[in-house]
C-alpha cells in the first residue's frame, strides 16, 4: 500500500505543474494587426507626417533576424486591466475614455512566430493567443498574399478557428488603435460587429480563420470584410476580393450585398427603389429572408448559371412625397416587381464586374459546378477563373414577396 501511494504522489508532484501559470501573469492577446514593412513612404508622409514613431521607439521595434530583412510589422493588442477590487476614483470612470484600455505593441520582423517571441522581451506578461478575437491585415499585406502571414495562426495549437479576419484600408495597426466608445477594446468592438449581419447585409460575416483555411486549401476565391477606422470608430465598409491568397480589389457595399445574396448567405437587409407611383419618392423593402438556388446549365460547352433568388420581406418605409396608401391592390404587386428588378440589376452588375474586372469567382460557382457537373468541371477546372468564368452566361430570376406593410396602411 505504501509503495503505490508514494508512486502516486510522485506522479502528481513530479509531473504536475508544468504548464501552470496564474491568470494574472498571462497576457491575453485580443487582436493582431499585421502591416507591411517598411511602410509605404509616400502615403505615410502625405497623410500624417507627425505620426511616424520617434527614433527610440523604432529601435525597440526592430528585431535582429537570423536571415532575411524585416517584412512585417506585427501589432498585438493586450488589455490593460485595472485593479477592480478598489473602488474606482471618480475621474477615471466619467472621463470620457480618453486613455486607452489597451496596449498595442508593435514588433517588426520577418516571421510572425519569431516576432511573437521577441515581444516577450518587451512585456512582463506571457502572451497567450487563446482568446484572440480578430486578425487585421493591411491591404498591402493582402495584395502580397495572406497565406504567408496566416500560416502561424493556422498552425499554432493555441489559436481558435473562430478568429475573425479583416482587411484594413491603409494601416492595420490604426484599426486596433481605435478607442471605442461603448466597447472596452477595439478588438472586441470589431469582432462583435458581424452580429448585425441579420439586419445589414453589407457586412461580410462568417469570415473566421477556419472558413479562410477551407477556402484557401480548396483554391476558392472569397471576400473578406474591410475595416476602416477613425480615431474612435471602426466601419466595416464593403469587402476585399481574394483570389488564391492575394487580394485583387475592393468590393463596394452594394456589391457585397449582391455577393452574399448569390452565395445564399444573405440574412436580412434593405433594398430601396424609386417609387413606381410617385415621381422622386423612395420605397424601402426590409428583406427578412432570402434563398438562392443556382443551377448550372451546359449547352455546347457554354455555361449558363441560372440563379433563382426568392426574397421575402416587409414594406418598411416610404420616403418623400406624402402619404402612401398601401391598400391600393396593385401597389404591392408593382412594388414587388420594382424590388425584383432592383435586386436582379444589382446582382447582374456585380457578377459582371467580377467576371470582367477581377476575373475572380468569389461567388464560388465552381463549387456548384463541381458538385452538379463533375464531368464538365474536370474538363475546365484548370481554366475556370481565367477564361471560363468570365465568359459564363448568367440568368437571374428574382421573386420578391412583401408580407407585411407595417403598422400604418
Amino acid at each position: 500500500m505504501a509503495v503505490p501511494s508514494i508512486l502516486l504522489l510522485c506522479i502528481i508532484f513530479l509531473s504536475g505543474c508544468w504548464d501552470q501559470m496564474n491568470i494574472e501573469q498571462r497576457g491575453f492577446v485580443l487582436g493582431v494587426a499585421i502591416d507591411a514593412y517598411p511602410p509605404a513612404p509616400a502615403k505615410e508622409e502625405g497623410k500624417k507626417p507627425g505620426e511616424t514613431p520617434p527614433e527610440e521607439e523604432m529601435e525597440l521595434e526592430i528585431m535582429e533576424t537570423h536571415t532575411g530583412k524585416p517584412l512585417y510589422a506585427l501589432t498585438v493588442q493586450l488589455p490593460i486591466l485595472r485593479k477592480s477590487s478598489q473602488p474606482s476614483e471618480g475621474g477615471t470612470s466619467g472621463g470620457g475614455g480618453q486613455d486607452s484600455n489597451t496596449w498595442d505593441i508593435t514588433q517588426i520582423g520577418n516571421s510572425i512566430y519569431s516576432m511573437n517571441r521577441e515581444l516577450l522581451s518587451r512585456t512582463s506578461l506571457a502572451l497567450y493567443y487563446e482568446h484572440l478575437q480578430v486578425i487585421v491585415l493591411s491591404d498591402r499585406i493582402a495584395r502580397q498574399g495572406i497565406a504567408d502571414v496566416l500560416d502561424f495562426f493556422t498552425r499554432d495549437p493555441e489559436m481558435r478557428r473562430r478568429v475573425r479576419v479583416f482587411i484594413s484600408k491603409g494601416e492595420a495597426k490604426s484599426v486596433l488603435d481605435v478607442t471605442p466608445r461603448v466597447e472596452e477594446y477595439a478588438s472586441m468592438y470589431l469582432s462583435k460587429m458581424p452580429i448585425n449581419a441579420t439586419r445589414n447585409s453589407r457586412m461580410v460575416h462568417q469570415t473566421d480563420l477556419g472558413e479562410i483555411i477551407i477556402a484557401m486549401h480548396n483554391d476558392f476565391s472569397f471576400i473578406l470584410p474591410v475595416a476602416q477606422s477613425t480615431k474612435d470608430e471602426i466601419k466595416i465598409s464593403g469587402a476585399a476580393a481574394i483570389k488564391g491568397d492575394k487580394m485583387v480589389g475592393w468590393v463596394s457595399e452594394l456589391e457585397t450585398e449582391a455577393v452574399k445574396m448569390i452565395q445564399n448567405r444573405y440574412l436580412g437587409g434593405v433594398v430601396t427603389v424609386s417609387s413606381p407611383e410617385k415621381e422622386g419618392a423612395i420605397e424601402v423593402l426590409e428583406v427578412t429572408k432570402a434563398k438562392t438556388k443556382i443551377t448550372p446549365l451546359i449547352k455546347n460547352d457554354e455555361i449558363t448559371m441560372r440563379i433563382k433568388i426568392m426574397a421575402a420581406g416587409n414594406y418598411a418605409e416610404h420616403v418623400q412625397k406624402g402619404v402612401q396608401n398601401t391598400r391600393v391592390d396593385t401597389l404591392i404587386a408593382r412594388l414587388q416587381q420594382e424590388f425584383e428588378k432592383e435586386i436582379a440589376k444589382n446582382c447582374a452588375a456585380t457578377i459582371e464586374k467580377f467576371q470582367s474586372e477581377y476575373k475572380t469567382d468569389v461567388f464560388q460557382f465552381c463549387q456548384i459546378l463541381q458538385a452538379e457537373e463533375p464531368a464538365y468541371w474536370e474538363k475546365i477546372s484548370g481554366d475556370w477563373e481565367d477564361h471560363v468564368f468570365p465568359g459564363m452566361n448568367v440568368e437571374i430570376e428574382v421573386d420578391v414577396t412583401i408580407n407585411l406593410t407595417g403598422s400604418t396602411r
Partner: protein
Amino acid sequence: MGILKKLFKQKQKTPEQFNSHAWSHLMLSGDIRDNISRLNEIMNHSSDLKSREFNLAGSSRRAAILFVSTLANEDMIQEHILKPLIMESAVFNTRGSMDLNDIRNSMLSADSIQIVESFDDIVLGVMAGDTILTIQGYDKGILIHTRGNQGRTVGEPATEPSVKGPQEAFVEILKINIGLIRRRLLDPNLCFEMHKMGRRAKADYVIAYMKGIANKELVSEIKNRLSVLDVDGQATTAQMMRMIVDRPNSIFPLIQVTERPDKVVSALSEGRVAILMNGNPEAVIAPTTLPILMHSSDDYFENWMIASVIRLSRMVGVFVTALFPALYIAVTAFHPDMLPINLVLSITSSRMGVPFPAYVEALLMVFTLELLQEAGIRLPRVVGQTVSIVGGLVIGQAAVSAGIVSPLMVIITSITAVASFTVPDYSLGLALRFLRVPFMILAVTLGSFGVAMGMLAGLTYLASLKSFGLSYLEPIGTRYPSDWKDGMIRGSLWSMKKRPKELNPEDPIRLSKRKREKNRE
C-alpha cells in the same frame, strides 16, 4: 521490549477480570439482610442505592425493596409497591400466610414484574431503574419495572429540518423512540429485538425490522456483526455501527444516521433495518446508499417533478461542494481558454494585485470557511451571532479590500459553503468538505486533468464501496433499472409500485390499485 510485553500481558488479562464478576454466579438467599448487604457490596455502597425494609401485609414477614433512586420512578414505587404491600393487601389477606405467587398475582399492582434468582439479573435491572423486592424466607426475588422516563420531551428535528411532514425527533430514551416508530407503523410484523451491548456498562439496543419485508439474510448479517462486538460500552449507536460496516475507514457514511422517526419508518417499510440504542437521540439505518443519503423527507411531500428537480439540484450541490474551488484553481492556473473572454478579463482584473497564487488564495479561504463553520457549531448560541458578523463581513469584506484575496474567490467560497448545506446527510456533507482539499491539490498540480482523474478515482472508489452487501451507488447503474424511479430523481408515487429491488425484499409489492366497485349504489 520486556516491559512492553509485560504491559501487554496485563492488558490482555483485564477483560477476563470483568467477565468473571465476583457476583455473576451469586444467587439470592432467604435472608433479606444478607441480600441487602450483598447488593450494597456489589454496587460499592453507592449513595443512590436505596433500600426500604417493611412488614409484609400487616404480618410479621419482613421484606425489603432496593432501587437506584436516581433512575427509578419513586412515585410509582410508593403507589404500586409499598402501598399495596404494606397496607392494602392486609385487608384481603385473611389466610395469614402467603407465598411468592400470591404476592406476584394479587398484591403487586405494578404493570411489569419478573421473578429473579441470580444477582446477575438483579444488578442489571436495578441499574436500569427497576426495583427488587426480596422477602424473608424466599430465595427468589421479584424485579419490578419502575424505570423513570426522565429526560427531554420529544422536540423538533434540529439537524434534519423539513418544511412539511412530521416535526418530531428522537429523544434519548429508547422506550419513547420505539413508541415514535410504532405509532407510525401499526403492523404486528414490526419487530423490535432487544439486545444488550457492552462489557462493563450494558446498554440496551433494539434491532428494528419488518418481518416479511426485510430480507432475512440482511437481518441476520447485522445481528451477527453486532454480536461479534465486545466493547466496553458504546456511547453512541453511530459509533457502534461504524465499527461493523464493510469499510470502517471510508470517509463516506455507510450507514444512515437520522433523528427523524418518519425516515426510519419509510426505511423499515422499504425493507431496511434500523438500530436504536438507549441514550441516543438517533437511529441508524442500514444498509444505505449514496442516493439515499441525498434524499430528504421533503421530497415526498411535493409533486414528483418538482421534487425531482430539487433532488437533481442537490446533486449539483454535491459536485459544487467538492469541486468548485478546485475547478477555480484549475481554470485560472491552467486553462483560462475554457472561459469566455469577458469572464477571463474580469477574473484577471479581480486578481490584479492579489499577492498569492490562486491556490494559496483558495486554500486560505477554504480553511477560513472550515474555521467559521466549526466555530459556528462550538460557540454558545448567545455569542453565535458574532461569528456570522465577524466571518461574513469582516473576513469577507476586509480580506478583499486589504487585497489578500480576490472578490471572486469570496464568491466561490460562499457558493461552496452554501452548496455544502444542501447535502441532507451531515456525515456525507463532511465527507464532501474533506474531499475539497485533495481535489484542490490535484488541481494545483495537474489542472483540470487532475480534477478529472480525481473524479474518476473517486467514482471508482464509490463504486467499490458496499454497505452491508449493498452497492453504495445503487440504484445508479443498470442492475436494477426499476429502482431509478427513486434514485437520482423521485418518480411519481403511482410509479413506485414495488419496493426497491436492490434490497431484495421478501414482499416486493408495496402499492397496487384496487378495482373500483362498479355496482355500488
